[in-house]
């Protein structure tokens, strides 16, 4: 019932892999870890959610915050590896139309 956040910085992109649960307790930790990367200019951020077992609106709030910050700094954000459950959460909240979301992990990581 916790979260682990693994960041890999490469030339082309920064990948953040999240494992565990994103809720009211762990969301602040995720925001704290990920936010600094969004403040750099032109960051291509890939967030891998394939190991996320639970997420609610607190997690959506974090992604909205990261997305806004990246946009303000000419960066991009891509969410990958979403389970059907997570995909549904983005669909019913309308975020799927706004963000770049890929269910099933992308190759070449």
């Amino acid at each position, binding site marked *: *019932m916790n979260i682990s956040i693994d960041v890999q910085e490469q030339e082309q992109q920064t990948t953040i892999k999240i494992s565990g649960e994103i809720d009211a307790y762990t969301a602040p930790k995720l925001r704290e870890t990920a936010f600094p990367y969004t403040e750099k200019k032109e960051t291509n951020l890939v967030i891998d959610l394939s190991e996320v077992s*639970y997420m*609610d609106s607190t997690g959506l709030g974090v992604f909205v915050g990261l*997305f806004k910050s990246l946009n303000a700094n000419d960066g991009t954000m891509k969410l990958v590896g979403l389970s059907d459950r997570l995909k549904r959460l983005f669909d*019913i909240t309308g975020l799927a139309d706004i963000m770049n979301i890929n269910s099933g992990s992308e190759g070449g990581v």
Partner: protein
Amino acid sequence: MKYADYIEMKIPAKPEFVGITRLTLSGIASRMGFSYDTIEDLKIATSEAITNAVQHAYKGEEGEVLIGFSLHQDHLEVVVSDNGNSFDFEETKEALGPYTEKSVEFLREGGLGLYLIETLMDEVKVHQNKGITLFMTKYLEGEQVERDAETIST
């Protein structure tokens, strides 16, 4: 309410205890025969309600959140109650909903919780007194269909 089994838990109004309630809820809901997807919906709705109580109701003060589960034959009722300083539920609800605004800089970073509760549960009632009590009902799938069918035929 009659003939229901009732389980209650009280947690400190701190975010680290929301996950514990989810574990209890999973156990109860799977025992009642809810599907995997519905249990996940129940977990989100209940967590949202508790998160609301923890974040809005107390604003840094010590407090407790009471969570009750009424196990009925065809449905589960989850009650989440705080006795902190309540916010105006109706007013808050009005201001929320899915994202329709396409302009990124105006996206809200919070406030989807109540919207998710209403979307994921079958019935939601609010009682506002000193604090806020949220009653959320989820029907077992088969029963829900039958109930709808009955409503149509009458």
